[in-house]
């Protein structure tokens, strides 16, 4: 200012327009590129895995079901309520080509993963940023009030559209007659619709709580609810499925009718939900949730200062959430039990297959399939619980704890105990919900304890999962994420294995594959005892490693 000549006498400067009027979205473009840059590894991994899963499934379906007779037989098996509950609506069966088989069997499953991906993208770029305080730094720059949320949604949308194109391309490239281009495109974009819908849900949940974990948890609960709604709806008259974005995606009937409009329904839902998220975000402070922070206790209870009591406190929220979710899921499946027999009575072939299994009833066969799903959901919680020590270590909170009279062994074992007991409790809750609802639906009271017992048989598989997590924590602390392979692999093998006629040894690699499939099969103690012993061995192995390694600190 000093050296330049100002021609006119200094007039008072014209008041500038307030920055907020410029744009609430200022900086969104930069943030989108920044977000894509940050996720440059993560997103391709998601996209490529999901695309490969779809493409390889189509390939194996095409190999396995290359005759019309084979496909007709598959359609008959796939029409049982148990199969419908874990796959998709019956309408696909009217034209059961390889493509529609893929869409029927696979879409519901990949939709869950796409939803998970989208929720994690949105929370990572919004609430997680606020929680760490990085958002504050960004928001102090020329960044509009809504720019961060808009950018996160845009990154999620871009990932979903990219995924849609990749899946469509990979399916179309396989050409296989029925898997035509139109079907491939509808199939791909059905995923995008689900993903964008759940990204919008996450945009709302990140406003409500101050924590990324809580926000993700809430959004994942919505995904779980959406899945449960479509499962119940598809087995029943289909009404409930229309309340679920996953249901909408499946009602595109890709490779059968190739309808686009259910995808528009997803987009409209996403727009409506985001329209709630943006105003909500202006009703709170940066870094805060909509719910105000409450005052807490001035001092700790006796139980909290015991290692196990403290671990329980850290796991409590997650346990309650999963417990509620599993109870709802169990009750939903249980309420189907009354109809299973009637619906399957007409399916002669299915009945014969079951008889070959060991002369069990149709209801029991259905129940044992549901049990696997419930157990794997419980395994997710157990894996999270077992990874808690690692989370505490990475966050720098373990340091202060382990500098007290608490030994490393006791610290980890407290989490292991709470995780193992919590997982078992979850199985019991799910089994009781399933059994009680089943008892009401069928009038057979013995189902309550029978199904609760069947659920508990999965406890050793959960403990094994937990053991894997502890072993990784002790030996490969940076690779603890590998533990997710256990539930994901078990689900994939248990869920798709029968349809794709996986060789038996693939199923044997899954700890859940060794659990006797009660109530359809007989109880066998040997595999359960072996799994329990292996779990104990893995925990011991992990602890021995942890005792010897450095605590990782920032």
């Amino acid at each position: 200012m000093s050296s330049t000549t100002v021609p006119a006498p200094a007039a008072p400067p014209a008041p500038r327009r307030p920055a907020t009027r410029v744009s609430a979205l200022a900086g969104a473009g930069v943030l989108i590129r920044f977000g894509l840059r940050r996720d440059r590894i993560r997103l391709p991994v998601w996209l490529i895995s999901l695309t490969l899963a779809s493409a390889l499934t189509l390939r194996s379906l095409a190999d396995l079901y290359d005759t019309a007779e084979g496909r007709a037989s598959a359609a008959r098996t796939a029409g049982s309520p148990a199969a419908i509950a874990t796959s998709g609506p019956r309408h696909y069966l009217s034209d059961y080509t390889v493509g529609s088989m893929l869409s029927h069997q696979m879409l519901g499953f990949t939709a869950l993963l796409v939803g998970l991906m989208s929720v994690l993208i949105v929370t990572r770029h919004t609430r997680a940023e606020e929680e760490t305080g990085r958002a504050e730094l960004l928001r102090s720059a020329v960044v509009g009030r809504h720019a961060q949320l808009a950018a996160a949604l845009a990154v999620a949308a871009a990932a979903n559209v990219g995924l849609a194109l990749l899946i469509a391309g990979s399916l179309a490239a396989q050409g296989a007659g029925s898997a035509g281009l139109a079907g491939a495109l509808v199939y791909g974009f059905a995923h995008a619709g689900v993903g964008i819908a759940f990204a919008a849900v996450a945009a709302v949940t990140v406003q409500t709580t101050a924590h990324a974990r809580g926000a993700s948890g809430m959004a994942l609960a919505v995904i779980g609810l959406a899945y449960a709604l479509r499962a119940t709806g598809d087995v029943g008259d289909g009404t409930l499925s229309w309340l679920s974005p996953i249901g909408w995606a499946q009602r595109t009937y890709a490779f059968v009718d190739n309808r686009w409009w259910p995808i528009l329904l997803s987009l409209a839902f996403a727009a409506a939900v985001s329209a709630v998220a943006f105003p909500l975000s202006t009703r709170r402070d940066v870094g805060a949730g909509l719910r105000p922070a409450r005052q807490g206790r001035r001092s700790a209870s006796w139980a909290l200062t015991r290692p196990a009591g403290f671990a329980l406190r850290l796991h409590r929220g997650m346990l309650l959430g999963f417990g509620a979710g599993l109870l709802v899921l169990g009750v939903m499946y249980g309420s189907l039990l009354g109809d299973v027999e009637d619906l399957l009575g007409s399916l002669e072939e299915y009945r014969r297959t079951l008889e070959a299994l060991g002369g069990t009833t149709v209801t029991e066969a259905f129940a044992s399939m549901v049990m696997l799903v419930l157990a794997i959901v419980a395994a997710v919680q157990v894996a999270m619980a077992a990874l808690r020590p690692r989370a505490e270590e990475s966050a720098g909170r373990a340091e202060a704890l382990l500098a007290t009279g608490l030994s490393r062994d006791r610290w980890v074992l407290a989490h292991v105990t709470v995780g193992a007991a919590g997982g078992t409790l979850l199985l019991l809750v799910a089994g009781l919900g399933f059994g009680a609802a089943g008892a009401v639906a069928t009038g057979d009271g013995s189902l309550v304890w029978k199904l609760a017992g069947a659920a508990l048989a999965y406890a050793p598989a959960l403990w094994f999962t937990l053991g894997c997590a502890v072993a990784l924590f002790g030996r490969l602390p940076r690779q603890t994420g590998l533990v997710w392979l256990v539930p994901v692999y078990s689900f994939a093998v248990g869920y798709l294995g029968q349809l794709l006629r996986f060789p038996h040894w693939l199923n044997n690699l899954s700890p859940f594959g060794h659990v006797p499939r009660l109530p359809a099969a007989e109880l066998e103690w040997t595999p359960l005892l072996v799994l329990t012993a292996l779990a104990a061995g893995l925990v011991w192995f992990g602890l021995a490693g942890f005792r010897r390694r450095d605590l990782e600190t920032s």
Partner: protein
Amino acid sequence: MTTAIDVTGLRKSFGRTRALDGLDLTVGTGEVHGFLGPNGAGKSTTIRVLLGLVRADGGSARMLGGDPWKDAVALHRRLAYVPGDVELWPNLTGGEAIDLLARLRGGLDRRRRDELVERFDLDPTKKGRAYSKGNRQKVAIVAALASDAELLLLDEPTAGLDPLMEVVFQDVVTQAKEAGRTVLLSSHILAQVEKLCDRVSIIRQGRTVQSGTLAGMRHLTRTTVEARTARPVTGLDGLPGVHGPRVDGDRVHFTVDGTHLDGALRALGAFGIRALTSHPPTLEELMLRHYGDELAAHGHHAAADDDMGDGPTGGAGGGPDGGPDGEPGGAPAGEPGGAPREATAGGAAQGPTGGATR
């Protein structure tokens, strides 16, 4: 005096980074020991080795008569630790976190805990996520000091505390010392160390560069003397131990080795002393003596030297814009007249400080 901590030749690498490279540290029982060094010098790593959280690659470490790695848990019952970066559980209140940490250590003096909460003006009912950095720090300090640990390991404990709380902290540590506890205080707040510590160890790049009492260290370095005399001073150049004398009319300014202070003052007396200020080297000067070349590498050479050459009162703080520049002798930086003076001052200061290490 028995030793509470005895570390010799400690080595630790993280991948390619060498965090500790033959570090020595001896802390006597009942003393408050200052542990000084810039960020990344290895202070926190040393403390984590002492806590058995990290295992040393080489060298030996003994603490309270035990092995920090093997006897970790037993030792932890006798010590309390305040990390430099306190992380709390988001859904536990500060009060709960204090109780948790203190009871896991083996005990809690409830009366002391409440008194400390009061003195540090901490609201124990807030959840961990709601605390600022300073308040998280207070939670850890209260948890550590509410115990009756015989050894306190404090790793830059007051980062984020306001000056008022800093004073409270100093009182509390002084009390701990009076109660006979041993304290290892890692810090780069020099005023704090000067006030609290009996002995200090200065470390850099994983090695101990100097260790001893502050008085002893000062003895090895130079005292700054400024005086006004009745007659202009002459002949200072020839005196042993006198460095960079500068005479400006009736004013004189020089630094002198601790062992030659007496002779220099006698010589000065002959010219009729009207006013005299002298100050021992500040901790800044002691530190800068070891880190002078690093500062030079970062382009802060002139500023640091200027500060040291001119500072009449010493103490903490005081950058190039501090008090000294306002004095008659010091012209504002950047104006032509100031340049020669600054050059001289720089030269004078280089003797005891940067020059020694170069």
